[in-house]
C-alpha cells in the first residue's frame, strides 16, 4: 500500500512522542510540518486514523491556523509582518515588491521553482523594530525596500 510519499514510520514516531494523545493535535501537526515542511494529505489521514479522530477534524485544525500549510513550502521562508505598526511603516510596499520579484499572487505564496515562500503575518511582537521580517527564522528589523532586496540578492547568489 505504501505508495505514499510519506514515511508513516516517521509520523508514528512523532505520535508516540506525544503518547498518541488526540489533545496534542497542534504540537503533533507542528512536528510533522517541521519534518516535511508542509502537511501532506496522507500524513493527516494517518494521524486521524491512528488517533481515532475524524479526518475532517484534523483537516479543520490544519486549515484553521495559518501557520499550517497543506502545500509544500519553498526552500526559503520569508515572513513579513503586516501588523499595525509595520503596516504604518509601509510593510505593504515590501510585500508588493517581493510578490512581484518572485511572480506570486493572492493565494500563490510559493515560487514555481520552490525557491521561496512569502508569507504575511499579523504581528511578530517586535513593533519597536517595525517594519520587521523573518527570513529563515532570523529576525531583521527596521527594514526598507532596499535592505530587503539586498537580502534577496544575497539569498539568490
Amino acid at each position, binding site marked *: 500500500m505504501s*505508495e505514499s510519499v510519506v514515511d508513516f514510520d516517521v509520523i508514528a514516531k512523532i505520535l508516540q512522542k506525544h503518547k498518541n494523545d488526540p489533545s496534542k493535535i497542534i504540537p503533533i501537526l507542528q512536528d510533522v510540518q517541521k519534518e516535511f515542511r508542509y502537511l501532506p494529505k*496522507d500524513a493527516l489521514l494517518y494521524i486521524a486514523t*491512528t488517533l481515532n479522530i*475524524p*479526518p*475532517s477534524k484534523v483537516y479543520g485544525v490544519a*486549515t484553521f491556523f495559518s501557520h499550517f500549510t497543506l502545500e509544500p513550502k519553498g526552500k526559503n521562508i520569508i515572513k513579513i509582518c503586516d501588523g499595525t505598526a509595520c503596516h504604518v511603516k509601509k510593510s505593504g510596499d515590501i510585500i508588493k515588491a517581493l510578490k512581484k520579484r518572485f511572480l506570486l499572487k493572492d493565494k500563490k505564496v510559493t515560487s514555481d521553482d520552490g525557491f521561496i515562500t512569502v508569507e504575511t503575518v499579523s504581528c511578530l511582537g517586535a513593533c519597536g523594530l517595525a517594519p520587521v521580517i523573518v527570513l529563515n527564522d532570523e529576525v531583521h528589523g527596521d527594514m526598507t525596500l532596499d535592505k530587503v532586496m539586498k537580502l534577496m540578492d544575497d539569498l539568490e547568489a
Partner: protein
Amino acid sequence: MSENKQENFFLTVDNIKVPIEGERNILEVIRKAKIEIPTLCYNSELSIHGGCRMCMVELEGRGLVASCSVPPVDGMVIRSNTKEVRGIRKTVLELVLANHHQNCYTCGKSTVCNLQQLAKDYGINNIRFKRREKESPIDVGLCITRDPDKCILCGQCIRMCSEIQSVGCIGFGFRSSDAEVLTAFNKNIDETECVGCGQCTQVCPTGALMNTSNIKDVWQYLNDPTKTVVVQIAPAVRTAIGEPFGFAPGEVTTDKMVTALKAMGFDYVFDTCFGADLTIMEEATEFVSRVKNGGTFPMVTSCCPGWVNFAESFYPDFEKNLSSCRSPQEMFSSVIKSYGPKMWGINRKDLKVISIMPCTAKKEEKDKDKFKIEGDPNTDFSITTQEFAQMIKECGIDFRNLADTPFDHPFGEKTGAGVIFGSSGGVAEAALRFIMDFDENPPAEHDFAFKAVRGMEGIKSAGIELNGQKFNIAVASGLANTRKLLNDVKAGKVSYDFIEIMACSGGCLNGGGQPTSKDRDYKLKRMAGIYKNDVDQKLHKSQQNPDIIKLYKDYLESPGSHEAHHKLHTHYEDKNLKKKYGVEK
C-alpha cells in the same frame, strides 16, 4: 441540582412567570411560556453553539444576551420582544441571507426551510447588504446532496454527525469569512466515512444538505409502458407520510399510500413489512441455530444499512457477530426479482423494483454490487418518504381525502412484527415473538408485547428465559450510543446474546429520509403510531404470516435453507479507515 431544590425557582419573561425545572438555558424556559424564540443553530438534542445570534433577548441587569447560552437563575427578568431585540433578529437574518443562495423557487427545501420561514415571520422584505456571490460545486452523493452555497454555518450537521452519530465526516474548515462546512480535503461525501444515515439533512435549517433525489428515475420507469413497476413501502413511512399533508405525526395512513401509488401508475404495491417478516424468519432462525451450534455472540442485527456501513468502517472486528441476513428491502427485492418474472410471465429486465424508505442509507445499500445480478440491481431505485410526498404533490393527489386500497398479492399479508421494525426495539421484539414460540411454555397468543425493549432510550436491555436458559438482549439506536454499547461489550463490561442496532435515534421512524417535523415530540408520536398499528393487525408474529408460509412452501423451502441463504443472506467487508484511505503501514 436536585429537582426539589429548584421547585421554587422562577424567572419572568414578558411579564409571564415561568418555573425553572432544570433547563440548561433560559431559551428552553422561555419556550415553556409559549413564546417562540427563533434559532438557526440551536437544537435541544445537540451541544450549544451560540453562533447564529437569533435567540438574543434582553436580560435585566445584563443587557442583550444569547438566550441559548445563559443558564437560568431564580428571579431573572427577561424581555424577548423589545424594539432592539426585534431589530437585531432582523439584521442577523439580513446578514445571513446576504451570504445565502436565495434561489428559493428551485430549492428542494422551499416551504420547509427554517431560514425561509424566519425571513417570512420577521417580515424581511428588503436585504440592505450586497449578496456575496459564491459558486461552489454541488456534491451529489448516493444518499446526500451538499450545496455549500446554501450553508449558513450553523454547524447543526457537524454536531449531529459527531455527537449523536459519532462519525464526524463533516467539520468546519478554514476560518473567518472563508469558513465552510467541509469533509476532510473537501472530498465528495461518498468518498468519506459517511454512513449515509442522512441525520444531517434532518437538522440542516436550509437546503445545504438534502436527500439525494431519485424522483426523475422513478418517473422514467413509470412512463415506460414496457416496464412492470413494483413498489415496496417500509414500515416507518406510514407513520410520517401524512405530515406534509396535514396529518399529525404518528397518524398512520397505510391504505391511502396504496391508493396514491396506484394512481401514479405502479403495477404492484407491496408492503416491506412482508420483507420484515421474512427477515425475522431468517434472523431468528440464525439466532436459534447459533445457540444450538455454538456460533458467535452477541449476534447483532443487520437490517440497518447505516449501521452496517458504520460496522464495516469502525467495528470490522464485529464482522462475525453481524447477522448474515440482508435488510428487509434487499430480501424483499431479491424475492420479487427472483420469482416475479415467472409469476407475471415477464423478463427480469422489464421488471423494475422501487422501494420507498424512511432512509437515505438505503440508496447506497441498493447500489452495492453484492445486491445486483449481472449488473442489474435487485432494487432499482430507493426513494425516501420526502421524495414520495413530493411525487404525490406533483400528481395533484389530495392525499388527505383519498380512499383506502389494500396491498397487492401474493406478498400482501403482514403481521404486527413486521410493522414494529419501524421503531427502535422493534426488530428485537419481533425476533422475541418468534423465538419464544420455541419455549416449552410459549406465551399466550394475546401476550405478544415485550415492552422492555420499547421507548426512546438510546440503550435498552432486557433478559428472557428460553427453556431454562437465560438470554440477554440489548437495543441501541443512534451511532454514538452504539459505539458506547459495543465498546462496553469489547471491554467485557457487559455481556449480551442478541443486540439490535439502528443508526438513527428512535429507529427508522426518525430516519434521514422522513419529513422534517416542527413538532418537538414527533419521535414519540410516530413511535406511538407504530405500536398502535401493531395492535390493529390481525396477526402479530412473523411465523403466522400466511404469505410467508406460502413463499417458503413454493420457493424457499425453509428458513436458513440453501435457497434462502442464496437469496436472502449476504457477507460483509472490512472497510477500516486506514485501509479506506490507503494509509496502512
